[in-house]
């Protein structure tokens, strides 16, 4: 089985000479010397690579929206904010092979003729910051970055930006506001960032996993990329599993393996004494899947057909000794806290959802609360809020109400959590960024 993305991951990661020795930066040489920018975009489009950041949008298509004839700066951003709870794939790529990401970024930047590139990295990834900073310096020294790259006349400056912590920084238009030094609130679309992004200039934002794959597509071609996958969505995918399984971890596997293979062959099944109740297939903002979905294929279409989203491909397992109400309360606490407050349904609705769930979890819930929670999943659903945070927050809630309704009802009937003592969420006063006296 080929594992192009992860086969050269080491800790500490390869230095530039070692990376070059295993064929590193060949894709940069090939692209900037022998391909037209539009040819690179066409190749990526042909490969049918779909973005690994969660939404699954065609990467080549996205690049092709960049107007190539406008003068002035253009930007490329690697989205390395990775704050989706339960997600731990980009960290692996960043810490384990930063040159692969940089190489993908240089090729992507060349394809859209970007003049500057940014790695937008979350604050908590301290080891990744060290690895990426070192790799950027090495790439400059070797002539892959800076002025007149490899004597071709193409120039690119690259910067590492470390964030100051907010889930919304991962949303691509909010990320751009944050890079401009502002609050990370999203922007209205259109105009799309491809046309008017960072500082009003054409900008492409791609996920770390997406960009890390680009060198391999350039080196080996679109057909090879498609052949890695078992389904129409090409490539390999980093899948991960956390929770009470025997071998939590992340693995690069052919796109489209089944849930059962992932859970049993890789994650090693449930820990002794624990049963499987459900799983969030792609991070906190995806709908639960349950036992009956074990044989679905884990590609974009397969997970969508089962009523959820592939999302980040890193899964969180709900076991039979963890309270589903408490589980969802933990998620909604996160979303309520991280809501940027820009639009009313999300700003007001998420804290309300959190309170209702906490009341139920503590045995203070009323039957009407279930109806109220259901209404929220509509009020905060797609089309009613300014960005995808709120609809994402509703996905685990709506599916929990569907699959674990008995558990919600039992809490209300018995006036207690039948599983364990409720685990309170941190109060607002725990966050020291709130207080101001000006």
């Amino acid at each position: 089985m080929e594992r192009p993305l992860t086969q050269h991951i080491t800790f500490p990661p390869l230095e530039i000479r070692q990376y070059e020795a295993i064929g590193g930066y060949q894709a940069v040489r090939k692209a900037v010397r022998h391909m037209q920018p539009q040819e690179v975009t066409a190749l990526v489009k042909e490969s049918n690579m779909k973005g690994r950041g969660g939404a699954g949008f065609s990467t080549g298509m996205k690049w092709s929206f960049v107007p190539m004839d406008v003068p002035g700066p253009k930007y490329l951003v690697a989205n390395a904010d990775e704050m989706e709870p339960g997600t731990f794939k980009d960290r692996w790529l960043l810490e384990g092979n930063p040159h692969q990401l940089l190489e993908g970024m240089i090729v992507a930047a060349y394809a859209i003729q970007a003049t500057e590139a940014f790695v937008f990295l979350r604050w908590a990834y301290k080891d990744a910051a060290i690895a990426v900073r070192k790799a950027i310096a090495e790439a400059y020294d070797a002539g892959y970055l800076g002025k007149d790259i490899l004597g071709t006349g193409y120039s690119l400056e690259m910067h590492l930006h470390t964030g100051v912590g907010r889930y919304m920084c991962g949303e691509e238009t909010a990320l751009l506001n944050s890079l401009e030094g502002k609050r990370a609130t999203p922007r209205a679309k259109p105009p799309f960032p491809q046309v008017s992004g960072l500082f009003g200039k054409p900008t492409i934002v791609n996920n770390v996993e997406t960009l890390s794959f680009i060198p391999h597509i350039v080196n080996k071609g679109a057909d090879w990329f498609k052949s890695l996958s078992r389904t129409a969505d090409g490539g390999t995918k980093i899948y991960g599993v956390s929770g009470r399984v025997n071998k939590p971890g992340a693995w690069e596997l052919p796109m489209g393996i089944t849930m059962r293979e992932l859970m049993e062959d890789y994650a090693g099944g449930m820990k002794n004494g624990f049963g499987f109740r459900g799983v969030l297939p792609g991070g906190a903002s995806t709908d639960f899947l349950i036992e009956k979905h074990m044989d679905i294929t884990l590609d974009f279409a397969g997970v969508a057909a089962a009523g959820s989203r592939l999302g980040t491909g890193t899964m969180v397992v709900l076991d039979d000794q963890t309270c589903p109400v408490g589980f969802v309360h933990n998620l909604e606490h996160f979303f309520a806290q991280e809501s940027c407050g820009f639009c009313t349904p999300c700003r007001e609705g998420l804290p309300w959802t959190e309170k209702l769930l906490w009341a139920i979890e503590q045995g203070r819930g009323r039957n009407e609360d279930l109806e109220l929670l259901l209404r929220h999943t509509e009020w905060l659903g797609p089309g009613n809020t300014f960005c995808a945070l709120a609809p994402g927050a509703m996905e685990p809630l709506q599916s929990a109400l569907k699959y674990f309704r008995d558990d919600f009802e039992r809490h209300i009937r018995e006036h207690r959590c039948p599983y364990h003592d409720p685990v309170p969420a941190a109060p607002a006063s725990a966050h020291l960024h709130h207080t101001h006296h000006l």
Partner: protein
Amino acid sequence: MLSMTEKEKIEEEIRQVPIKKAACIEALKIVQEHRRWVSDESIRDVADILDMSAEEVDSVATFYNLIFRQPVGRHIILLCDSISCYVMGLKGIHAELTRLLEIQYGQTTADGRFTLLPNPCLGTCDHAPAMMVDKDTYRDLQPSALADILEKYT
């Protein structure tokens, strides 16, 4: 008042961006690196150097979880309170940490050594529960391991 070093570093950031305001987050990070937190006075100083109003700078500062607008201790503990850690034993880790430190989330120990904060997913969910102390990440935590970890930070 900003120190000379802080000023120079902020000026350097201003040179990197097309408009002064765009250096706002970097400026706040620089101040926090030097003073551990960002006081009202610092907000005004940053506003002056960036030609912004203090309110505008504060609206940015208070938006981000890790810009501290209150004094903090010498070491910051970020305990992951997200879902995989919740499943894998956050409760026991939280109980033992608050017992050892004798503080709650958002508080600083009387000796000024530690501040304890909750933090969303640290991206190491396959090794939950997890926490960070300053730059260091601790994985697969057991309550019994916490005392030794805290010992390392003086």
